[in-house]
């Protein structure tokens, strides 16, 4: 077995907390793209990072921030693509230009640089594709060839295809119901593009990340996945967002996906064990879990 991927590095800059103005709002099929005038966040942001919004306004019963991946961060503007999943994200999608929102960011670790000269394969599921737009541009600017796959349940849940098409050499689209691109899971396209790839970056739902990471690892191609785990704080203080991650010493720890992620080496995430407490996680013995 080849050595595992190097863990994603810390971000170059610490986060800031700002009240910023929404300067653009665009409905994109099932999602809403918001553009924020947030120069201090934009200048610090690196692809793969996210921001955390306070939601519901002054009278809100929703205490916890909502984490949303940064799609692009240029010229003082930060864009995000939001899917209305529950009350907090629904509130975000209802923001209008001129409204202000309280946001903390950029948060989390960015995608690491690819190996020199490597062709990069970017795989986005649903709104996860949005998080790859900034990365695609950076990779292209750094001289890497970029391929991209965007997949979703249906056409209205695809995202950022146009932006990725403008940057990537090849773009493949898949939908579960065949309403756009090829019918099937992203792995259909990934399997075809993977042989050319020197590195894989993925963002989307856990089952997709797992399939993509497994496929890459099977071919000994380094992969990085941006995970989405339920977060209470986004800044590393609450310990709610942990995943079983294999560390540099080969031992598994419950690592915070907000500060040690959201970008992890695809071969370091123990997807099988998410939601359970395996005996070999550091400190499981103190919880009364014994080795089998």
């Amino acid at each position, binding site marked *: 077995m080849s050595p595992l991927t190097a863990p994603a590095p810390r971000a170059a800059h610490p986060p800031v907390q700002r009240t910023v103005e929404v300067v653009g709002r665009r409905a994109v099929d099932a999602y809403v793209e918001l553009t924020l005038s947030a120069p201090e966040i934009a200048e610090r942001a690196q692809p793969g990072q996210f921001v955390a919004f306070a939601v519901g306004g002054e009278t809100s*019963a929703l205490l916890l921030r909502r984490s949303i991946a940064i799609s692009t961060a240029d010229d003082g503007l930060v864009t995000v693509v939001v899917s209305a999943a529950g009350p907090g994200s629904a509130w975000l999608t209802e923001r209008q230009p001129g409204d202000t929102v309280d946001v903390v960011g950029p948060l989390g670790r960015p995608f690491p640089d690819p190996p020199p000269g490597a062709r990069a394969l970017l795989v986005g599921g649903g709104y996860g594709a949005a998080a790859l737009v900034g990365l695609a541009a950076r990779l292209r600017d750094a001289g890497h060839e970029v391929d991209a796959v965007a997949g979703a349940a249906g056409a209205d849940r695809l995202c950022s295809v146009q932006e990725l098409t403008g940057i990537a050499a090849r773009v493949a689209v898949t939908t579960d119901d065949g309403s756009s691109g090829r019918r099937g899971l992203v792995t259909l396209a990934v399997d075809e593009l993977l042989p050319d790839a020197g590195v894989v970056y993925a963002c989307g739902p856990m089952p997709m990340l797992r399939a993509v990471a497994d496929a890459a690892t099977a071919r000994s191609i380094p992969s990085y996945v941006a995970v989405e785990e339920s977060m209470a704080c986004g800044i590393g203080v609450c310990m709610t967002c942990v995943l079983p991650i294999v560390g540099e010493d080969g031992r598994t720890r419950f690592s915070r996906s907000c500060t040690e992620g959201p970008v992890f080496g695809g071969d370091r995430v123990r997807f099988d064990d998410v939601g359970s407490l395996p005996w070999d996680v550091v400190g499981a013995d103190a919880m009364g879990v014994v080795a089998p």
Partner: protein
Amino acid sequence: MTALDTAVDMRTTLGSAPIPSPVLTASGCSAFGGELEPFVDLTAIGAVVTKSVQLRPRSGRATPRMAETPSGMLNSIGLQGPGIDGLLAEELPWLAERGVRAFVSIAGTRVEDFAELAERLRGVPGVLGLEVNISCPNVESRGEVFACDPVAASDVVSAVRAAADPAHPVYAKLSPDVTDIVSVARAVSEAGADGLSMINTLLGLVIDPDTMRPVLGGVTGGLSGPAIRPVALRCVWQVHQALPEVPILGMGGIRTGLDALQFVLAGASAVSVGTAVFNDPSAVARVHDELAVALGERGFASLAEAVGYAHR
């Protein structure tokens, strides 16, 4: 934190230990402080109350570990942490180097564990004192939570007081999930607690309407946030009423300076800001500033004058 130019003297003490601000973090809600550095001047706040540490490193529980609830949240972390060795090797030196006061929360499942932790923390640079977490409902242990039984609670506190650095004030952290919090408060005070931290989370449960099972891996969890503030204030009020000489570190749903003021008026001489930090990472500093302004506006020259003022 930019110290506001208010005339109010905000100094207070935790037992015998002086602190420049009455506003602290809450155990488990600001990890070991480092992550707040971009948002708060850690040296200016009262202290960082560290995540409860046990003897051995702990993985904590399986996820999901939280559920948002109306104006609050439920958590079931299971005291994930590095253990006392890790704390002594990494976290406390980091805080000490920066001159940040650490109020170290200790937890265990046996009286001896608590005593050993207190012992290990004697004379450690930067440690201001100890908060004894006898009330965490999340610890996996056979039998009842210490804080629910005045005798068990006192046993822990007297063992810790005996083992701890004499210069370290020892605060016992109480659970609201008891029929009579005053009796527990009295027992641990008599057992040597220099002060009381109140309150820990309330035991709660949320069921996921989709899976139709409890959301949390640990089934039940601890309820925190503004939702519980009236319960926390009632506990502080009752205990200060019964034991006016015992210092109280108040907490439970504090989000603003006016919330903190309520705790001070009810009898707390310092406060911890917990869950609100998840909403606003600069909350601890902001609450200090807002409290200073609120005290000034009400004609108080010092925080001390306002402590317990609502009982007059």
